[in-house]
């Protein structure tokens, strides 16, 4: 894409200037001009000489310069350069829009839009839309990065866990709410990862896997998004719950991170779905099974089990060491994520 031996011929430039070049060819030429200075100069010259677009361009250039006059010299130069560059791109539409001289307005406003044939300079209504676009585009991009988890059942599930714990604390089991939250919280980001990445979760997986973003990079981006939502929400919920001794509201953070990283590390061998099932299921078994098995005082047993797993610097230190180990594994096996499960 960057090193095409192809260049615009004089004939092509002339046909572009007089508007006889088919639209699709004109677009590919414009694409080329963004990268090739020599061709841009050739097309610029052709456009200036053309009877249709030449005078329009001269008027436009004047208008742009007049507007830029009060600005700092540096800015003015920038505008000139932009206008000069745009000349070549807009010759076609400029000729077509000859009846509409450029309306007043900041010429830089459309500068960030590498839009096709950059019509916004000539059509004022489109400009306000474009000005509002960068922010909307950023938000959209952030959601894209987050991937499928936020479109599915996961986000409601996170809220259900958080609000459920709060509701429980208001109702009968004030003492039960925090242990239950701490038992469930580490599984939430793991579930988010399961629903974000891999052939089973992401309908675009096959396409994404063939892109430079595919593999570990996309998986980490989506995991980060999942953590960014679940960590603050669940920790805040924990803080709002009535305190009932140890472990504290933040005690699940390190285990949650470790289980997430362990899922990612395991996914390199067995795929995302199986890995998250193993880690998430493993945690739930370790925490919940003893309290069920104990029969009577299930809640006491759960609290004790959580105490053993989460409270104290030794437990937390072990979780931290495991997290570091999983992160190291991820880094060492990063190429394994380029080829994962087949749908």
């Amino acid at each position, binding site marked *: 894409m960057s090193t095409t031996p192809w260049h615009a011929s004089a004939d092509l430039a002339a046909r572009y200037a007089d508007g006889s070049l088919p639209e699709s060819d004109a677009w590919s030429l414009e694409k080329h001009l963004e990268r090739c200075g020599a061709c841009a100069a050739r097309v610029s010259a052709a456009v200036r000489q053309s009877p249709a677009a030449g005078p329009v361009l001269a008027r436009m250039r004047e208008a742009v310069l007049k507007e830029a006059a009060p600005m700092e010299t540096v800015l003015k130069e920038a505008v000139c350069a932009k206008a000069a560059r745009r000349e070549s791109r807009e010759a076609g539409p400029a000729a077509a829009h000859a009846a509409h001289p450029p309306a007043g307005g900041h010429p830089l406003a459309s500068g960030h839009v590498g839009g096709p044939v950059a019509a916004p300079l000539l059509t004022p209504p489109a400009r306000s839309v474009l000005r509002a676009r960068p922010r909307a585009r950023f938000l959209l991009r952030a959601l894209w990065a987050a991937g499928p988890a936020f479109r599915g059942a996961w986000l409601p599930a996170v809220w259900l866990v958080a609000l459920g714990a709060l509701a429980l604390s208001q109702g009968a089991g004030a003492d039960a709410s925090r242990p239950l939250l701490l038992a469930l919280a580490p599984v939430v980001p793991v579930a988010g990862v399961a629903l974000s990445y891999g052939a089973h979760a992401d*309908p675009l997986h096959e396409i994404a896997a063939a892109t430079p973003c595919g593999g570990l990079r996309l998986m980490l981006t989506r995991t980060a998004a999942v953590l960014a939502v679940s960590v603050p929400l669940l920790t805040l919920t924990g803080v709002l719950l009535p305190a009932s001794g140890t472990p504290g509201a933040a005690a699940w953070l390190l285990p949650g991170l470790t289980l997430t990283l362990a899922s990612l590390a395991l996914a390199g061998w067995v795929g995302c779905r199986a890995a998250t099932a193993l880690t998430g299921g493993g945690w739930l078994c370790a925490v919940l099974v003893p309290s069920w098995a104990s029969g009577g005082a299930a809640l006491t047993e759960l609290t004790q089990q959580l105490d053993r797993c989460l409270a104290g610097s030794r437990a937390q230190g072990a979780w931290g060491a495991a997290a570091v180990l999983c992160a190291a594994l991820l880094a060492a096996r990063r190429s394994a994520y380029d080829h994962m499960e*087949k749908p």
Partner: protein
Amino acid sequence: MSTIRVSGLRVRHRRTVALDAVDLDLGPGVHGLLGPNGAGKTSLIRVLATVAQASAGRVEILGEDVGEPARRGAVRARLGYLPQEFGYYPGFTVREFVAYVAWLKDMTAADVPAAVELALHRVGLGDRADAKVKTLSGGMVRRLGIAQAIVNEPEILLLDEPTAGLDPEQRVEFRALLRELGVRATVLVSTHLVEDVAAACTEVTLLDAGRVAYRGTPASLSAVGEATGPDGIGDSGIERGYTAALRAHRTPVEPTR
């Protein structure tokens, strides 16, 4: 100048061998990949798309060995890939879908809007850019798939059954687009529609049971068909060539089939 070099490629799926001892050398142009179901067309395309891993052999794309993880990213940025089946996010519009893939392909953000417009225009979806993907017909989804594959103006374009679901008129237009893309890019099109190959391809590779059964041009494949005489199976010259080449490949290797 070859942009894709494959030597001794072997691909296994669990216990079955999908491709074996495949050697290929492809340069710019439109290459048809023909073969019966299960011949290994999709496996070959997935390996070339760097999505699947080769069990043995060497795959070199644009001069880079894709077996080297560090070189893969650079190759992927210059790839276009249309899988046989692909999904989409339900809420996305046509434009957002293609822009998302452009983003995944690491394109410069400033270039994306223009590139998306151009890609949609080329597949004839320019007027549906703001429609939701889920409202598109099957043929339109197929064209959307082609648009996402060409949005980064790839040097290597891999299309797995791109004409499935297109109506005859769209197929004619699509062949014209293929020829246009093949001027600069290396386009590999897998299909079971023999007439697509005859109309759009400069070269033909015929796969059978994981091996290359025939390589040549559409004209030479037709010639194979004519050589077998009137009792060959098929309605057109190239169809007769297809069946004759398959038969010729199967006879010495596996006499029982």
